């Protein structure tokens, strides 16, 4: 006889506190919740005192806004007042149309769409800060592009966004999602981990695979600094969105192929937290170090300052 599950007790619980992904997985087991998405729908519903239908409807609004930012970013070449962002997505589009892709159209489309979404943010478009505005291109660019490429049903795409949000929540609880606290590893690194896990969840309910994808994506960018030129969310931010998107797709592929992480996801996040604390503040969004301190960046920053009215 199997051990009775505590599903009946679930209704009694008012709040759910977790310390990380391992807690979430333990509670899924305990309460017999089959999917990570289902767990985080319940988590949000209980903690925010909202009916699950309301939680789902809010996420649908987020999904619509992400599709909106892709559309907006692909409408016309995106240019910023500084001139540093100058139609990257449009260039990629022409390249794909001209059969130039080295890696196949779907992969190149991930690159193009991530550029479009991240450039739309730089150009004051309407975006979803998931997890932050600076890394807002990754989920639309990689997650939605792959999901749509595989004709995944809308409901399943919606569920995957809860996996993304749940992974982000686990990072926020144990470390930070903010570039000014932990550098770009916390922004694009987290976006990549969220996206990788969400991608796997579209095709597999193997919790080991979902966790491994998130761990792979984050492990590979530990220590990544936040060093925006002239303090603007343009360079290197937009291309780092592309890096995170491509990294997320590769991480999801490895996990779906059966490769498993040796270091559990929560420990990777804790490592990120320690690294973030060790990083000099000059590498955490202050534009005092890294690329922002190169002679070219210093010259661009000075020119941009002169341009101001």
């Amino acid at each position, binding site marked *: 006889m199997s051990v009775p599950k505590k599903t009946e007790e679930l209704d009694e619980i008012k709040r759910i506190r977790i310390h990380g992904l391992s807690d979430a997985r333990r509670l899924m087991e305990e309460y017999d919740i089959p999917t990570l998405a289902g767990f*985080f729908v319940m*988590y*949000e519903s209980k*903690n*925010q005192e909202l009916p699950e239908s309301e*939680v789902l*409807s*809010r*996420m649908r*609004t*987020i999904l*619509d*806004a992400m599709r909106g930012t892709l559309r907006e970013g692909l409408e016309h070449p995106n240019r*910023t*007042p*500084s001139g540093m962002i100058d139609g990257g997505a449009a260039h990629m589009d022409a390249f794909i149309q001209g059969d130039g892709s080295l890696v196949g159209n779907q992969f190149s489309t991930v690159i193009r769409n991530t550029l479009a979404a991240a450039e*739309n*943010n*730089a*150009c*004051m*478009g*309407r*975006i*979803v*800060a*998931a*997890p*932050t*505005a*600076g890394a*807002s291109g990754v989920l639309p660019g990689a997650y939605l592009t792959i999901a749509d490429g595989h004709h995944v049903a809308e409901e399943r795409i919606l569920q995957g*966004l*809860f996996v*993304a*949000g*749940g992974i*982000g*929540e686990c990072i*926020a*609880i144990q470390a930070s*999602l*903010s570039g*000014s606290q932990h550098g770009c590893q916390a922004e694009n690194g987290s976006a990549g981990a*969220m996206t990788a896990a969400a991608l796997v969840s579209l095709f597999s309910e193997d919790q080991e695979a979902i966790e491994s994808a998130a761990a792979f994506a984050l492990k590979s960018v530990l220590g990544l600094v936040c060093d925006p030129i*002239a*303090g*603007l*969310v*343009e360079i290197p931010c937009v291309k780092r969105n592309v890096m995170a998107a491509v990294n997320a797709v590769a991480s999801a592929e490895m996990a779906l192929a059966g490769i498993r992480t040796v270091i559990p996801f929560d420990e990777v996040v804790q490592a990120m937290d320690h690294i973030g604390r060790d990083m000099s503040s000059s590498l955490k969004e202050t*534009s005092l170090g890294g690329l922002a301190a190169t002679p070219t960046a210093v010259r661009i920053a000075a020119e*941009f*300052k002169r341009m*101001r009215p």
Partner: protein
Amino acid sequence: MAIFDVMGPIMIGPSSSHTAGAAKIGYLAQRVYGKPVRRVHIILYNSFAETGQGHGTDKAILGGIMGLRVDDPLIKRSYDIAAEAGVDVVFEEAIDPEKHPNCASVTFTDPDGDHPFVVEGISVGGGSVKIVGINGVRVDFSGKHNLLFVTYRDVPGMMAVLGDALGTRGINVAYAQISRDKNTGGAMAIMKLDQPCPDDLADYFRSNKGVTDVVTINKLGNEYERTEED
């Protein structure tokens, strides 16, 4: 945190602190002012001044002052919107190490520049903001509470009038701050309320002969940081 803090907010880019936060400061400032905006002088301090232009901080704060939400694409056109509404706008940039890195001060005046009303706000990260000054008085509130502002002649018993009426209506005061302006003899009460202050109660306070002004602001939450389409 919550899942929708990670997956959101929906906002106009590029920066939660320098764009969404700036819009929210502008929005709260005009709500605190509580009168139609005719002329406004905005000072962007420190990082808001240094990188504000590239982040659209000026457009965002002006958009907020014109009542636009953090995700309203019209923020990009806020200068035009202010001009169409006949609002005079002056921007200034300043460096002041005494102030928060992301700080803005908004001064509302009559069309002829009289009767200044000054609101100072800071953007503390992730789109969260605080209003830290009103007409030189140190304050501390965000859009996360229901707020009641009452300005009145500084006479004994006013707190009892306010507290009694709120209590009778079952409205709990979570936090209150009172302060006095020595020059004018006027006083201001700021209250954070667990429930919103209804309009008729605000009118009741206005009818008190000692009261000069009443402003209520309901918790911004999702109606402002929209998670649902209109």
